[in-house]
């Protein structure tokens, strides 16, 4: 039974670590968005009459870039709230099958 508790602890810990790693995905889009907006500002500076179009494209582009971060966020939340239940169920079934 101690081994089961140990396995459960390791599994929960790894779920937390995995969630943390998944959230690292939020760093890249932030950097990319910053560069995209800076470039868009230069474009607006060059052609102020195209401000509406550039702003619209910039916002949509940033939203697309941000989706990558959201994937990481969703994986992280699933690892925290859903995965432990599924994995512990599998672990219990395995232990019962071995007995």
């Amino acid at each position: 039974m101690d081994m089961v508790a140990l396995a459960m602890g390791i599994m929960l810990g790894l779920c937390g670590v995995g969630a943390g790693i998944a959230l690292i995905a939020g760093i890249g889009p932030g950097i990319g968005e910053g560069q995209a907006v800076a470039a868009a500002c230069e474009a607006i500076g060059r052609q102020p009459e195209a401000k509406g179009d550039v702003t619209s494209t910039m916002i949509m582009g940033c939203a697309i870039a941000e989706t990558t971060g959201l994937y990481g966020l969703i994986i992280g939340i699933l690892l925290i709230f859903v995965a432990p239940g599924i994995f512990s169920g599998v672990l219990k079934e395995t232990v019962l099958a071995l007995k």
Partner: protein
Amino acid sequence: MSRLDPTVRKETAYIAAWVLLLSLLMEAVFLLLGKWDLSVLAGNAIGGIAAVANFLLLGITVTRAASGPKEKIALRVRSSMTARLLGLAAVCALAVGLLHTNVYATLLPLLFYRVGIAFRPMLDRRRGKTETGNTEGGDLLD
């Protein structure tokens, strides 16, 4: 609201419409699967509102950063992105952990706006870009 950039307002309305449409579709799927309950509705509402609010804040940040000092643009957008992501994580974690909303119904609406953006160039092309020379960003996103 009056200080909101018209482009941001227009894009947010477009995204909100897509989130609403896909939320209704998701509710219908839950109903068809026989797994619909109030936790699905609550999760969908929270996730949908969070997604639209996230997009609105993104638009506000981007337009404000664009009008600010040039050196701080990247920094502002980056810190806003981090804050918004953490905010979304907190909202979703609170909804799922404390309010016990359906996890999938809470998280899926966060990705609905991506579907709306994917359909954007197609809708623009169909509309025929009637506005004078307005490409609405569709061409650049292709």
